[in-house]
């Protein structure tokens, strides 16, 4: 259970989030959508303490976490994994070493055992044949899969995906969608997905929040989203250039 209460954040004079209230239930696939630059990624980065709010509170299972110190945040981050938009695999490590790093650090295993465990994790995302490759040599879709494997090594209860399908070809994108849905259904992991990929939204989302001008514009299920009469939401769905959106 994640709850944002009255969250506000501005960068310099530019206000990005302005009193956002959202709560995300356990085990659901929750989409955060909106135009580019509306603060979707900013919102989820607050949850794991990469950014700190100007005002407002964040609750993780009734614990207020937005004022924790960097060290205290480590406990939160073990429960909430994040898959970044550009995967952020470490260039200097091979794929398997990338996956083995959090295992080695958090499960206090030796390097050999960590590599064995990491290979299993790579098999889950069908990347075992690229284990010894450096990330720079892989395509975006493959990198994303390794990044997901790396995030899952900590067995998180929540996984945050920052635009998981952006920049992928349609087939890879749908594979990522399937992976996210399976995470929620089989492992009961709560998935928070930042996206503006309509296909993903309509195929796997349980609930959707749409941000517009720093505020929540719409919060509801897939069908509520589809049937919404709000002109801004309509414009987002139809993707027309003309409309009330700025």
């Amino acid at each position, binding site marked *: 259970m994640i709850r944002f209460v009255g969250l506000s954040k501005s960068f310099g004079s530019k206000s990005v989030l302005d009193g956002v209230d959202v709560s995300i239930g356990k085990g659901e696939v929750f989409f955060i959508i909106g135009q580019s630059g509306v603060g979707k990624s900013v919102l989820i*980065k607050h949850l*794991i*303490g*990469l950014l700190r709010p100007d005002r407002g509170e964040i609750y993780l299972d009734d614990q207020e976490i937005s004022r924790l110190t960097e060290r205290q*945040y*480590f*406990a939160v*981050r*073990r429960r909430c*994994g*994040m898959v*970044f938009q*550009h995967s*952020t*695999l*470490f*260039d*200097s490590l091979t794929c398997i070493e990338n996956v083995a*790093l*959090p295992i*080695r*650090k*958090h499960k206090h295993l030796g*390097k050999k055992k960590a590599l064995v465990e990491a290979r299993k994790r790579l098999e889950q995302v069908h990347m075992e044949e690229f284990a010894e490759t450096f990330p720079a040599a892989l395509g975006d879709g493959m990198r994303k899969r390794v990044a997901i494997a*790396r*995030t899952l090594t*900590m067995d998180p209860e929540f996984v945050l995906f920052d635009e998981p399908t952006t920049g992928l070809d349609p087939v890879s994108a749908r594979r990522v969608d399937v992976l996210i849905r399976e995470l929620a259904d089989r492992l009961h992991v709560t998935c928070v997905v930042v996206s503006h990929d309509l296909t993903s939204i309509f195929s796997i989302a349980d609930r959707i929040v749409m941000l517009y001008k720093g505020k929540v514009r719409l919060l509801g299920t897939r069908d509520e989203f589809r049937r919404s009469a709000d002109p801004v939401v309509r414009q987002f769905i139809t993707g027309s250039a003309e409309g009330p959106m700025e």
Partner: protein
Amino acid sequence: MTESLVQLEVAGKQPGRVSRGAERAVRRIGRSVVGIAQQTGGILVLLGKIVRRFFPPDIDYYELKRNLHKMGNRSLPIIALTSVFVGAIMVVQASAYVQQFSATAFVGWGAGYVILRELGPILIALMFSGRVGANNTAELGTMVVTEQIDGLRSLAIDPISYLIVPRFLGMITMLFVLTVFGNLVALCGAALFGQLTLGIEWRVFFHGITELLKPWDVYVGLIKSLVFGLIIALSSCYFGLAVRGGAPGVGRAVNASVVASAVGIFVSDYFMTFLLD
């Protein structure tokens, strides 16, 4: 006092070019002073964070080993090359005087003294800062720009203990080792070139070193190399982590880091020259 204030105000209101220029110059000096103070403060804060990771020791040994290997391997050839030429240049510069006073017995002492106490540690540190320090800044800067540091934090891994501490320890250790090695190579280069141009027997050359130099002369150079290592490590890590603004930002950071290291090396060398005499 009040009068001069009024005058200043009047001068400010007039579109006089002199006062504008002066004002701009003062403002610029002020800004760079504030900038330098900010950087020094940032570097000290980073040092504090690093020191805290040693109590209790929280160091990633795999990363440390990897860094030591990489830093040593990468800089060994360039430091060997530099050292040979530095030794040779020392002898070339000395040769005019040596021929004038026919003081061949002192060449070994002179070259040894300058190389071991000053030139060896400084030049090796400068090359090390260009090779390893700059590379370190670039690597860390790239990791910041591509959000890899945030990636580490999101995996609940402390970037300071995983990334910075091994690099910090690695640079200090490697510069020390390379200075020992480079000093040796420079002395050999000087001996070789002394024999080729001045016809000084290498036996005479090394006799000058062993008889006229004290162990302390060697130790001074090595203590200096440790301090230089500390300076290079801190400035390269600080500027790497402070990168903003994509690829040009990384370039600027590398530039700032090597410049800061160079200034730090010479200023600290000046004070150590007094303190360690």
